[in-house]
């Protein structure tokens, strides 16, 4: 018994452990960040953390539109090829150096070098749809970027979070030989200590020059209200939930619906759910001998009760949706809102007509997130009602990606990360399978409509094109979109100012502890 009492004493001491001098906000990451080099070696968690450190010329507002950040304003030449940015005055880097056009040019040129492996090189690089030909600095506060051809998508690409928001950094961020060192950005926080697989610690940047006005998406007024921001790496979600309840954690930004058990309804926790522009869908390989027949594809689609599935898997936080355009997107009109009804008898009829002999159809899924796994289990059960012999093949994430990238699957559950622009949402599905085997919908007509929509600037024209694409998508059923999930966040009562938003990134500026 003596040992037990010692433990209790130590435990009590631990609770009363005085918080360190400054206030610490502890947020949870479900896996370690990949690197501190924005937009290159990254994943969602990495983007989220680094956006507290670096800022781009422009950023995206809450509704996804582009807004000024380090550039106070910009002008586009008549032929739409030359963008001239004017930099905001008295902005300072974390190492105290002032922001000038020289650092902007250095940063952009570094991103465009193939060696950097920048994620958005695919768009702004030589063979992208908006290739950048030159970046110059006419004077200390102006930067001119010239494109090979006009592309309205240039600014949204600069603001893309998965490209590190094209964060402008000071040349000291790299070592003499050009290899990466640490991000010296202009954000409200600066990098403290990164201890692998344990935590990433950020400290408040006292000399941060905040924009006036309230916070809006990645832009607007960004104020660090705590001295230290500690991203704690807790892979196990029930452990994270338990830590939140115990009070050793303040913010869980990205919660799985399954973890809502025991949280919703607690008065000492604030829960928020915001629809996200992602897309959970069942991909169907149209080149597969069995699934080539549209009747079989339609039959599969008819067995899936998207409403019941979404309710069960997202615990009422997701929104069922049969269109590639997310429910929360401004382009989600009446055409997109149409849901395919469940009709088992019709599905059986179609299958008999198509001569389906009950052979095995493999459905690939993985445990990248619990929703993907649960979706496959429910689809398998629902398809069985119509006599479809679906068998689940569970792979780990890299193997799943390999099968997706090479199109080597019959059925596959896939969750696409958020795309802010409707053409990008359809872009996930539409493509020529000969060049891009990962594309799902190989139809020349659809490709033409998509190209037209990408070029069109007038929203009304883009909306009618989107409606047409949705109609064709439902008719040909190259895939069955199931639902858009919501971003669930939960914070302790003591946390003030936390506002969840559709982007996949945590946003902890403007958040304090009282």
């Amino acid at each position: 018994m003596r040992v037990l009492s010692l433990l209790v004493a130590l435990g009590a001491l631990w609770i009363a452990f005085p918080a360190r001098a400054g206030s610490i906000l502890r947020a949870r990451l479900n896996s370690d960040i990949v690197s501190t080099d924005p937009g290159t070696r990254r994943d969602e968690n990495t983007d989220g953390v680094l956006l507290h450190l670096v800022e781009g010329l422009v950023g995206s507002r809450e509704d996804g539109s582009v807004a000024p950040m380090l550039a106070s304003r910009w002008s586009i030449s008549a032929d739409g090829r030359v963008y001239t940015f004017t930099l905001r005055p008295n902005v300072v880097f974390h190492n105290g150096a002032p922001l000038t056009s020289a650092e902007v040019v250095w940063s952009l040129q570094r991103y465009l070098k193939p060696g950097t492996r920048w994620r958005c090189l695919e768009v702004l690089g030589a063979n992208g749809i908006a290739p950048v030909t030159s970046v110059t600095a006419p004077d200390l506060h102006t930067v001119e970027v010239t494109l090979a051809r006009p592309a309205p998508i240039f600014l949204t690409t600069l603001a893309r979070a998965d490209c590190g928001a094209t964060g402008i950094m000071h040349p000291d961020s790299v070592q003499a030989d050009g290899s990466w060192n640490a991000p010296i950005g202009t954000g409200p926080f600066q990098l403290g200590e990164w201890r692998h697989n344990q935590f990433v610690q950020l400290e408040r940047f006292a000399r941060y020059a905040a924009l006036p006005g309230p916070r809006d998406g990645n832009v607007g007024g960004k104020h660090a209200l705590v001295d230290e921001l500690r991203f704690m790496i807790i892979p196990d979600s029930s452990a994270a939930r338990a830590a939140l309840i115990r009070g050793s954690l303040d913010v869980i930004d990205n919660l799985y619906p399954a973890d809502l058990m025991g949280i919703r309804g607690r008065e000492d926790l604030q829960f928020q759910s915001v629809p996200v522009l992602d897309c959970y869908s069942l991909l169907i390989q149209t080149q597969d001998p069995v699934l080539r027949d549209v009747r079989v594809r339609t039959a599969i689609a008819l067995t899936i009760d998207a409403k019941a599935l979404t309710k069960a898997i997202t615990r009422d936080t997701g929104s069922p949706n049969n269109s590639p355009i997310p429910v929360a997107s401004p382009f989600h009109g009446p055409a997109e809102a149409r849901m395919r009804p469940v009709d088992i008898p019709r599905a059986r009829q179609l299958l008999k007509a198509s001569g389906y002999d009950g052979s095995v159809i493999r459905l690939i899924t993985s445990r990248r997130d619990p929703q993907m796994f649960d979706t496959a289990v429910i689809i398998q059960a629902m398809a069985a009602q119509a006599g479809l012999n679906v068998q689940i093949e569970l792979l780990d994430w890299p193997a799943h990606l390999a099968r997706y990238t090479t199109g080597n699957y019959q059925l596959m559950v896939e969750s696409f990360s958020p795309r802010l622009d409707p053409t990008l949402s359809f872009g996930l599905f539409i493509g020529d399978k000969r060049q891009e085997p990962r594309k799902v919908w190989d139809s020349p007509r659809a490709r033409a409509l998509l190209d037209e929509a990408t070029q069109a600037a007038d929203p009304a024209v883009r909306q009618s094109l989107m409606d047409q694409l949705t109609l064709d998508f439902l008719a040909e059923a190259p895939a069955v979109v199931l639902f858009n999930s919501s971003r669930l966040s939960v914070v302790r009562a003591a946390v003030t100012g936390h506002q969840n938003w559709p982007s996949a990134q945590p946003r902890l500026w403007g958040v304090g502890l009282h």
Partner: protein
Amino acid sequence: MNGKIGIALIGLLLLTIVVGLLWMPYDPNAIDLAHSLSSPAANHWFGTDEFGRDVLSRSMLGARISVLIALGAVGLAISVGTALGVLAGYLRGWTDRLLMMVTDAVLAFPGILLALALMAVLGSSGSSIIFALAIAYAPSVVRVVRGTVLSIREREFIEASRVAGDNAFRTMVRHVLPNIVPPIVVLATSLFGWALLSESALSFLGVGVPPPAPTWGNMLSASRPYMDVASWLSIVPGVCIAGTLLGVNLLGDALRDWLDPRRRS
């Protein structure tokens, strides 16, 4: 005495499997999203899981699959391990040194990781788990068998068989093999327990038998997020695994005493 408890527990397990073949309260894979996570009640004696599937039916089907996987893995590991162990122990010389080097190399891999990697290569299916676990366990079988054969090899009846004109192969089959049955039987019982535990550990690390097929292992690891709200989801498979292992270990002890002539006299 504890042999009786062991037999009782194993008997209960076999009964569950046999009954499971004929009748199960519900279809183990039928989902009922409206009644997910309902606690044990009259209609569902062991409650339902996150998809509304009946936990009792899944444990009965799970029993069959988990036991089959464990038996398959142990059977393969024992047969391969025994063959190599006898060769290494009896022939000595280069065969022994070579086999020992290979077994050491495989033993140097942490068991679970070896199985994890094998599963990733073979794809996760029942048969690939059996193969992965067999490879993870074969080396320890080879070591035990080799040790026993080394001691039997010195016994005079082996020399007698050579005097009677038997060649090496015949001596191994007629005289060495029958005499290493007792240690192998005891090893098989403990390996069976380990196979059950490893299968659940593999499911815990996210590999293992593909859904929707239930095994006690994947039921246990799937119950993790609901442990504090739906505790029956982890208690049922946990108790099943622990009960079976307890039965197997007790049976193993009883077998060892019964087969060991010294203890019997």
